[in-house]
């Protein structure tokens, strides 16, 4: 399904599925894609589905519609396109099945090279060697333009590497700052990011070279920052009083900065922050080196390039976390929907039972009271099973390991299921292993898992279960104990096998929470065991709970210190 995902703006994290042939985008509630953005027109643009493609049309909006930064009146969309309207940016993802060529058919991965294969490996090079391509230590006069260009390329290459390696913004900015300090003789530096909420610049990373006092505050002129932010230009300030752009009375002089470079971190759509470095050259240094400046135009240009790279990385990281957050919220929403549906059904049952009890009380009819009571009891069982599943699933419940007998646990489960099986006219065959030593496990947890799996077996037989059979068998082979639960129901369709252990996926309709198998599996995994299934459509299924045999003696020797 094609979609638009809001990666920036008030609706960030919202996904719109492109289901209809024409979908309006705008601020008016009538739009299928409703955008809460005051800079968006009421009926801003429209997405049309034509000939298997999505077209974006601007509907004469006042602020325009942009695709990948270019203003458009009509554009065909491709996956990955960024649509900007007002302050909102939407990411377009097209249909997954691309018409036309499939890369899998046009690209072959051949088997190990046959002898007559004409190509062979001539040379290999490690990925890290890429950076040595630009090694400035090569024999070049240190101050030649070529040496400088090489060194600049080297810095850019390393910046690109740095931003490709992390999704943590703070870490990323630290790396950028390291690089800048290695390359430029700055005394102090800092990176400020525009806070997405407050829209104000907030310092994120700060660095001072040894000779500057580390506790010294970096004061950055508001005039410079405003200039950089508003004009989207980088500035190199050398001597404030000589530069006509600056009011001599402005804060630059008070801050005492001789040389500073401040560049915008220009992202795809907006400035995400600024990079700032400064240095002070004392009169002695000028006398010693004969140089009045350390920062040159080259430095400024390169800083702008670094700023852009860093900004792209910051944007990517933010969109990525916005997407993760949106997915998490969607999962929580689904969980709540399923749980409330289930709880609602239980509550409905309790209301029915209570109504019968009330009726029986008024009419002094004990038979009706009993009927109502049975319904209430059954639902009470359901809600405690649900709570148990939820606790187990949410890790609130720790396995309570102690010596117990698996045969005993299985017998208890069977006893619990007998009434229902009898009601369904289903036979439960039990075959317990003759030797079953006491093992260390969580009897309550395993009881719960066996009960879940066995209940599923009964459910699998369906409502018309005449002739249905459930076999429960235990087995012990010295290293593992197993419980096999076999039914002669319809089996599991192949397409559902992948969903068996996924939470909240149930084929039982209103009766299933979709927690039974995931929880049972979790319990077995906590024991170092597993659940596996063999099934054949039309023949039935066999679920096996496999538990590694931990004998009490072994367990106590492990915890001999107690």
């Amino acid at each position: 399904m094609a979609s638009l995902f809001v990666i920036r703006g008030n609706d960030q994290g919202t996904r719109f599925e492109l289901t209809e042939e024409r979908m309006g985008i705008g601020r008016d509630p009538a739009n299928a894609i409703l955008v809460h953005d005051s800079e968006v027109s009421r009926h801003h643009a429209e997405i049309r589905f034509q000939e298997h493609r999505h077209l974006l049309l601007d509907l004469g909006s006042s602020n325009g519609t942009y695709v990948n930064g270019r203003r458009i009146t009509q554009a065909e969309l491709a996956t990955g396109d960024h649509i900007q309207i007002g302050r909102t940016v939407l990411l377009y993802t097209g249909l997954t099945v691309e018409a036309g060529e499939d890369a899998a058919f046009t690209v072959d991965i051949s088997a190990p090279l046959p002898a007559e294969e004409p190509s062979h490996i001539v040379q290999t090079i490690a990925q890290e060697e890429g950076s040595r391509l630009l090694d400035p230590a090569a024999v070049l006069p240190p101050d030649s333009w070529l040496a400088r260009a090489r060194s600049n390329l080297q810095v850019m290459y390393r910046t690109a590497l740095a931003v490709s390696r992390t999704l943590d913004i703070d870490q990323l900015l630290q790396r950028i700052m390291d690089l800048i300090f290695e390359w430029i003789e700055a005394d102090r530096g800092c990176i400020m990011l525009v806070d997405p909420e407050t829209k104000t610049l907030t310092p994120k990373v700060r660095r001072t070279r040894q000779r500057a006092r580390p506790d010294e505050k970096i004061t950055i002129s508001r005039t410079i920052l405003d200039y950089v932010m508003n004009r989207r230009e980088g500035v190199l300030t050398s001597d404030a009083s000589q530069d006509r752009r600056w009011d001599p009375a402005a804060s630059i002089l008070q801050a005492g900065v001789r040389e500073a470079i401040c560049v915008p971190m220009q992202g795809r759509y907006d400035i995400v922050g600024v990079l700032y470095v400064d240095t002070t050259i004392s009169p002695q240094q000028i006398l010693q080196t004969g140089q009045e400046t350390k920062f040159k135009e080259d430095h400024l240009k390169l800083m702008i390039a670094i700023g852009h790279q860093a900004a792209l990385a910051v944007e990517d990281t933010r969109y990525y976390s916005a997407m993760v957050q949106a997915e998490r919220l969607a999962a929580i929403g689904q969980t709540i929907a399923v749980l409330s549906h289930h709880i609602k059904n239980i509550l409905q049952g309790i209301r029915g039972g209570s109504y019968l009890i009330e009726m029986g009380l008024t009419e002094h009819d004990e038979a009706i009271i009993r009927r109502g009571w049975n319904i209430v009891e059954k639902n009470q069982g359901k809600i405690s099973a649900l709570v148990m599943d939820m606790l187990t699933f949410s890790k609130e419940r720790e396995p309570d390991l102690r010596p117990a007998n698996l045969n005993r646990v299985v017998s208890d489960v069977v006893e619990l299921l007998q009434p229902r099986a009898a009601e369904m006219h289903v036979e439960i065959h039990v075959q317990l292993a003759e030797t079953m030593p006491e093992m260390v496990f969580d009897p309550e947890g395993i009881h719960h898992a066996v009960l879940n799996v066995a209940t599923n077996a009964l459910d699998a037989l369906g409502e018309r279960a005449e002739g249905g059979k459930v076999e429960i068998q235990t087995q012990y082979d010295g290293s593992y104990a197993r419980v096999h639960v076999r039914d002669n129901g319809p089996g599991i369709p192949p397409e559902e096998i992948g969903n068996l252990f996924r939470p909240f996926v149930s084929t039982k309709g209103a009766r299933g929470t979709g927690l039974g198998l995931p929880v049972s599996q979790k319990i077995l995994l906590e024991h170092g065991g597993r659940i596996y299934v063999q099934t054949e459509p039309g023949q039935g299924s066999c679920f096996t709970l496999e538990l590694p045999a931990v004998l009490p003696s072994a367990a106590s020797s492990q915890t001999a210190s107690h």
Partner: protein
Amino acid sequence: MERKPSVLIVDAGEETREVLGTVLQRRGMETLWAGEPEEALQLAQTQQPDVIILDLQVEGTSADQLCRPFAQKMQESQTPLVVLGSVRRADRMFRGEFFPKPYHYAPLIRKIEELVQGKSEAGRPSG
């Protein structure tokens, strides 16, 4: 001889069946059961129930899809329809009386009685 008013209950879960069956029979009504819409349609045509109760167990499933055309047919036949379901869509899908789950039984029973009476009163002049 005057026949008992009858209520057809479609697609209800075990517990709803038990509760509604017990209560309605106590109040002198006959209850008919149908597991799926097709069966219900047949029963509706042959038995001419006074009220139909449609319990939508899991909305959005194929069973739910099957129920919709049935509900439409019943409305055309002027048989009062009571739908038990979730709040989300059902009340927009059907024009009948709607009880969102979890509903209370007292008002539901009252409504059924009301509909049964209305039906028999409407039928009186001709019969």
